């Protein structure tokens, strides 16, 4: 392992918030603020790549672990660490934050505060993926609410205050249950430390109440965040009314916190219950998949349409997780890896879609599908990005979305055959609404009601190109990311399945 500073992860987490503290001092120099924000997010990307390059795929368990006592009175530790499950999500986060900050250069209103909140948000999201203590995890989980609340309610559009409040209340409602769950777990197991909890037989008997209930307490919180039917209704509102960069981050990384939580806490700590309640997971997954897909047909706002498609795609994550029920370790680990890849792929694909919708909206000031006609004649480059995003989203081979979906379906077919059969049909709907969307907006008649749209700035197409590159690379050669997931998932599955 190449030499890495031992406090690497702490630096990775807290660099953005430290940078944000500089913003009040330069608040009247907008160019400086933008430069600061992009430098910090880019430094984060480089840092995470550096960490990744020193990450050892052959050593199981958490790496770069830092552990300090934090509140010994309550038994809370400050422990960070990264493994094969969280590493790709960290890379996704730093990549999408570079994109989000970059496309935000066109923001004109209250710039200092805007970038301040984005940097705070980056700290909290990375904290969620990297903390190895339930309380620390919870703190970062809640910390993310305040910046996102401000980002939606100040820089959003439409019913932004309502949507921001709805987002916060839904998440808080979920975390209320998570707090109880983690207190029960911590109290009965005697530790809040995730690394220790993974080694304990939490599933069996050490909890004072039946572990199934504790599993459900956690699951509600993550299911709201993911979001899955019937807890999804905050997502379309929040997405539609958030500013472009807010939607990119929301779809790209914030909802991945839910999926990450399910795999890390619900599945890895409560693995027995994850098997018992597999039917619930597969049912919610299938239902969200179909429900989200069908409801998109009624949407007139592009952003809302993509938001519902996110609900549908997150159903696939749940499907993949439900394959963990299988007694065959290969299938179980295949499902979990598919779910994890689906999260990563959806992050980049939906990020790209929201980014291009943002570019369209900046130029045409409408997101109404019926008013967007013949986009390809007016702005071929944006159209290209949008079409790539849509094709990747519907699962065209060659893009990362396809690999993730096929992996999930292959794994889950052996476990929940009929659910898979139903779900695969939903893919037809997915293809249907996306193709129909493209046909109505990008193609269609050239109404010719204005000339060429303003050209793209470099800060607009560079992030889009980054996302396109990652979508295609993973689509063509997915093994690079599977190898990382395997480092975490295979040892876990081998320990808990079959045998």
């Amino acid at each position: 392992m190449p030499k890495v500073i031992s406090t690497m992860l702490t630096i990775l987490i807290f660099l953005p918030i430290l940078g944000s503290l500089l913003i009040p001092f330069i608040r009247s120099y907008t160019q400086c603020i933008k430069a600061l924000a992009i430098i910090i997010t880019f430094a984060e990307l480089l840092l995470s790549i550096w960490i990744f390059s020193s990450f050892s795929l052959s050593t199981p368990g958490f790496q770069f672990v830092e552990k300090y006592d934090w509140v010994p009175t309550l038994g809370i530790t400050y422990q960070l660490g990264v493994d094969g499950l969280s590493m790709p999500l960290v890379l996704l986060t730093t990549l999408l934050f570079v994109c989000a900050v970059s496309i935000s250069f066109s923001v004109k209103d209250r710039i200092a505060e805007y970038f301040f909140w984005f940097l705070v948000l980056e700290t909290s999201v990375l904290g969620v993926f990297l903390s190895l203590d339930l309380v620390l995890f919870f703190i970062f989980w809640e910390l993310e609410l305040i910046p996102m609340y401000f980002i939606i309610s100040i820089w959003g559009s439409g019913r932004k205050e309502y949507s921001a409040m709805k987002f916060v209340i839904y998440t808080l409602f979920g975390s209320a249950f998570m707090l109880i769950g983690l207190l029960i777990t911590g109290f009965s197991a005697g530790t809040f430390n995730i690394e220790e909890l993974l080694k304990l037989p939490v599933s069996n008997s050490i909890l004072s109440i039946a572990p199934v209930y504790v599993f459900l307490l956690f699951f509600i919180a993550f299911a709201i965040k993911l979001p899955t039917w019937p807890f999804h209704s905050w997502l379309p509102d929040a997405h539609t009314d958030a500013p472009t960069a807010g939607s990119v981050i929301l779809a790209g990384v914030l909802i991945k916190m839910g999926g990450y939580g399910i795999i890390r806490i619900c599945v890895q700590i409560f693995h027995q219950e994850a098997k018992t309640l597999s039917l619930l997971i597969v049912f919610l997954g299938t239902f969200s998949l179909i429900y989200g897909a069908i409801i998109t047909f009624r949407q007139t706002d592009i952003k809302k349409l993509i938001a519902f498609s996110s609900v549908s795609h997150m159903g696939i994550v749940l499907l993949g997780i439900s394959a963990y029920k299988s007694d065959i370790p290969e299938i179980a680990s295949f499902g979990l890896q598919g779910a994890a890849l689906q999260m990563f792929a959806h992050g980049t694909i939906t990020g790209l879609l929201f980014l291009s919708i943002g570019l369209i909206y900046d130029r045409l000031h409408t997101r109404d599908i019926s008013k967007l006609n013949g986009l390809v004649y007016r702005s071929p480059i944006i159209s290209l990005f949008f079409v790539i995003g849509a094709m990747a989203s519907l699962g065209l081979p060659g893009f990362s979305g396809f690999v993730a979906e096929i992996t999930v379906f292959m794994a889950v077919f052996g476990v929940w055959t009929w659910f898979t059969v139903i779900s695969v049909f939903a893919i037809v709907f997915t293809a249907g609404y996306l193709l129909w969307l493209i046909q109505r907006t990008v193609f269609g008649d050239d109404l010719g009601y204005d000339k060429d749209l303003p050209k793209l700035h470099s800060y607009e197409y560079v992030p889009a190109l980054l996302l396109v590159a990652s979508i295609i690379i993973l689509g063509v050669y997915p093994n690079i990311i599977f190898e990382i997931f395997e480092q975490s998932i295979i040892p876990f599955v081998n320990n808990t399945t079959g045998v």
Partner: protein
Amino acid sequence: MDISELKYISSELIVTVAATLALLSGVFSGKYILAKIISLVGIFIAFVFAIGLWFEPSTYAFYNTINANQFSIFFKLLILGTLFLVILGSYDYIEYFGKLKTEYLSLMMYSSVGMMLLPACNDFITAYISLELISLPLVAIIAMTKEEFSIEASLKFFIISAVSSAFLLYGIVLLYGFSGSTNFDIISHILSGTSLQSNVSIVIFSFFFILGGVGFKVGLVPFHMWVPDVYQGGPTPIVTFLSIASKSAGFALLIKIFLLIFEYTDWTYIIAVIAVITMTVGNAGALLQDNSKRLLGYSGIAHAGYILIGIACFSTVNNIDGQVAVIFYLFTYSFANLAAFYSLMSLSQSTNSYSIQSYAGSFFHNKISSIVLMLALISLIGLPPTSGFIGKLYLFNMAIKSELILLVLFGVLNSVLSSFYYLKVIRILFQSNSNIAPNSSNSSVLLNSVLISTGLAILIIGIYPDPVLQLVETVVSS
């Protein structure tokens, strides 16, 4: 009695002397600033003396009516610290008192003497006198601005504290009839010696009366009606002081009373029900308020409900954890509430209104107050990284340990409910469009320094709570 026992009430004596000197200086020189310096110096000296007593062993004084231990000294320090910050920061507000500025100082200090005595008392007579000493000066200062609202608030406060005192007295009398003493230790001894069946109704009756009496002071449902009115009508510094110091003292007494009787029978479910009702009523009431002080009044009721969760943990395995939870929560609540009230006071100077809508866009005019108010409200919701989060975490953790999972569920869901109205205020503060005149006055350096220090305290305790938690643990085990 030995004359040297006076040292156990030295802080109270110093504050009394300082209050009297401040009053006299007002009469003879008429300069407010002199009275203010005298009071602040007096409070500071009292603070130092209280710290000096911290290291002495726990003792009883004045024929067992006063128990000088770290528990009482901790509350003394908390109350003195609050009083110091309240007086220091209220400089801007003082104009509203007209000619009665020095009287405001001395009456507040007299009231604080009662609050300082209350956590130390070991006898119901002392407790009763302390409670009266708290209330009567407050009645006078609430009415001091002579506005219609404050006179109404003062009258309400007076009548209700009289009624609650009657309740309390009736409870004490019943307990006295049962045990033949007003001393806590003797009552505790007798109660633990009797069987549950005999005379159970008298004890439960007297308990309800005492709970009612103290419940008025801390604002438990159904004895909460006065809180929103008084908070809205009273002068802001007084309401701040009332909401923090009076509540802390009241809960200190409640802890002591419960330690007496918790072994007698299982109070958990009675307390749990009162806690759930109190927090729900408080939060539901706050949802629709437009007056910010009234909103904080209802929020204060809700927080009294949360604190009761800690007391509900008493009758189980150990009561140390419950006490730590209660005291630590009070501590975090004090900072958040002080910051919230004082930043509202600062914002209201430029808007001349306590209506929440009038704060629209305050962030652009008064950055310090807006940011501190945001921190305070986040702390009151109980979100990290503020002290309020650690307070709630500790509280709920202890309740889970006592297997009160349903109670915790209600507590957590109530926090979610409360985020509605707190976030609404935060959103309005940071709203883009504002109707505040750009040249509105800014708050003074003193007020700002109080705001910044409380804001920092909220953050620092939120990020590194361990020293305070350990301090509270030593306090409780003393």
